[in-house]
């Protein structure tokens, strides 16, 4: 990929703290116009990486380029929007004034900022016929509304690159949906979105590409489809009906089939369905046949790519989550 096709080009950055290395020799390339997931357990170095991208902290080694220019270049960060993991705004300030202040800090002219603020407040239902929350102090807003205001602050200057740190944490389903829609819309308009998360389902649903990091180091990265096919494996998603028959006997039979090492390497009981990894050389048809023989009433039998979750668990493992490194990822 050419340098100017990349929204972000990180080469070998390292950040050491006194007791540990937060990020070690990390390189990653984020193509323009993509939705990129930075995945990792708590304490993996996600927030440290993001802060280095935003020039909030300086890497001890390595280089960071944003839109092909060094990240320390003045004015460059005006094109970037940031939603930190720990959210908060000036509590005693009026919503409109907070938003105008943050927009002005990104180089938006006050008049233009006011226009956009009105549009966004309307879009997020913060100005209605009965009440204009824009004139209320942040203090007077509910938590959900504060999250909306914070999100507006991130996008108000129409950034080409949006960096969201654990954006879904603490969001109710409605706000989470609104956030997801906003990310999709940004992508449609050709903007680049990077978000960090430790919830793999979100990443799998939304990301074009991901980078999994653990203990400050990159475990793997690439397009989501590539990551999922690169294992060279195919999995079976199996869902059983639970409406009739002697449940225990049938499950015993199914259990017997699933624990056959010639067919199944491992399986993961998700309660509603099993995610089954076939043994090398095993045939899915044979598995299906055996299951029916065992008396299973099958609702779903689907060949699938391994989920990000499964790859994550497999590659990062239990040791990836080190104790004593929690706090900021």
């Amino acid at each position, binding site marked *: 990929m050419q340098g100017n096709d990349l929204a972000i080009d990180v080469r070998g950055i390292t950040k050491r703290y006194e007791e540990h290395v937060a990020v070690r020799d990390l390189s990653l390339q984020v193509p323009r116009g993509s939705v990129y997931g930075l995945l990792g357990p708590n304490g993996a170095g996600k927030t440290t990486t993001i*802060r280095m991208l*935003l020039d*909030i*902290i300086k890497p001890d080694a390595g280089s960071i380029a944003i839109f092909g220019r060094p990240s320390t270049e003045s004015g460059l*960060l*005006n094109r*970037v929007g*940031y939603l*930190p993991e*720990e*959210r*908060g*705004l*000036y*509590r*005693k*300030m009026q919503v409109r*004034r907070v938003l105008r*202040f*943050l927009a*002005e*800090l*990104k*180089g938006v002219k006050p008049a233009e900022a006011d226009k956009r603020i009105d549009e966004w407040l309307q879009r997020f239902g913060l100005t209605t016929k009965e009440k204009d929350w824009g004139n209320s102090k942040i203090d007077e807003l509910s938590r959900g509304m504060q999250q909306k205001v*914070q999100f507006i*602050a991130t996008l108000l200057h129409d950034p080409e690159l949006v960096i969201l740190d654990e954006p879904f944490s603490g969001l109710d389903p409605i706000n989470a949906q609104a956030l997801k829609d906003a990310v999709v819309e940004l992508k449609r308009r050709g903007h680049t979105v990077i978000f960090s998360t430790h919830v793999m389902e979100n990443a799998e649903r939304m990301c074009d590409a991901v980078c999994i990091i653990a203990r400050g180091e990159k475990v793997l990265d690439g397009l989501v489809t590539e990551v999922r096919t690169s294992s060279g494996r195919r999995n079976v998603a199996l869902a059983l009906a639970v409406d009739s028959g002697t449940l225990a006997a049938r499950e015993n039979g199914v259990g017997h089939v699933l624990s056959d090492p010639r067919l199944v390497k491992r399986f993961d009981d998700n309660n509603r369905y099993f995610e089954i990894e076939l043994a090398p050389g095993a045939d899915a048809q044979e598995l299906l046949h055996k299951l029916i023989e065992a008396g299973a009433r099958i609702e779903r039998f689907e060949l699938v790519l391994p989920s990000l979750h499964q790859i994550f668990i497999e590659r990062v493992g239990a040791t990836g989550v080190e104790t004593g490194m929690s*706090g900021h990822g």
Partner: protein
Amino acid sequence: MDKFWVVAKREYLERVRSRWFVVMTLFVPVLITATFLVPAWVAAKAASGTAAHNIVILDATGTGLGQRVADILMRDTAAAAPARRAAAAEPGPQVREMTQAQLAAAEDSTTREVMKPNSVVGYLVLDDSTLSTRRIRYAGRNASSIVDMDKVRSAVRQAFTGVMLQREGVKPETISLISNLSLNMSQTRIDERGKGGSGQAAIFLGVGIGVLLLMSIVFHGQNVLRGVLEEKSTRVAEVVISSVKPEILLAGKVAGAGAVGLTQQVLWIAISAYLLTNFAPIVLRSAGAPIANGSSAAIGISFGGLTIGLFIAVILYFLFGFVFYASLLAAAGSMVNSEQDAQQAAMPVMYLLIGSWLFVNSVIVNPTGTTAKVLSWLPFSSPIIMPMRMGLSPVPWLSVAGSLAVCALGCVLAVWLAARIYRVGMLMYGKKPSLAEVAKWVRYA
């Protein structure tokens, strides 16, 4: 630079809009006006509100002493409050001359008279032995009024002198001249440039400037500290720092808060001046003071010592002192996470400031002494001590310029140090850092 203005503008507007700012801006001038006007009002009231003229003088001396006392009392009251005397047309003291034998009965009847409301307030007894024993008696409702009793005593003393001089054969005109003698002393300060201003006003001005500077620096400096702490504890700091360099954020905050301080001081001076010039005559007239003297002269204030040069110096020293202390306090605020810890972290900085104030007495006593000179060169004490010294006694302009230069250098150092602590501190949560850790921030930031 644009972002610096955005930060400073927010800081300024949010503070000026706050209820506290409005309350303090209005309250302090009222307080200043009250501290000037209340004592003046009390003094004027005491002068005119005296009842010493509304008494009965029982004179059994047979020398006309009673009439002399009455005349003197009338004259004093008239001098103190001509307006009120004319308006009320109150009677003067009533002199009742009698023999020693009639005295006891007269005392009884006058006592009953005093007990009636809206009547005379008391009586003075001058018996036939008064001239030899120098004993007089007074009884009345105002017997515990220090002012009234002073007036009566001094009137009798003057009348005594008159009677005794008359006995010595002194001419009546001379006696009248002596008893009407009044003194008016003015105090004038002399310095290298000659005479100027009054000595009292200089001390007043010097201390006033010192207090104003100290209070402003402490008050607005603490505001900066709280502001930094708020940004940190609400976590808004991270969003802001992703848009603007911490150094610029710090500089903008200090500049904005400093501008608030200047605004407030200008408003304080303007509102106080307005209140004093407009309310002083009204208040003093209501107390019955003579109208002609109801201006600021009567209140004893004179801004004569406040020259343009001193005014500019005060502004400059405020700005430098504020930048010095506010940036250090901002750094203290960035190191911690709670109000209690913040006060503790601010302690060393506050010690510098309060420590300078402890020497104020020796500066007032000897504004040209070594202590005063040394303190007006050190960057942490000069913003308070130097303007104070300038109010007390003249300081060569070269010294002022030199001290300002040292102060500016101190500011640069303080801002540099503060910015390094602030940069690391703003994103540091968890336990309070030790001094060694902070030193490490400064080295590696």
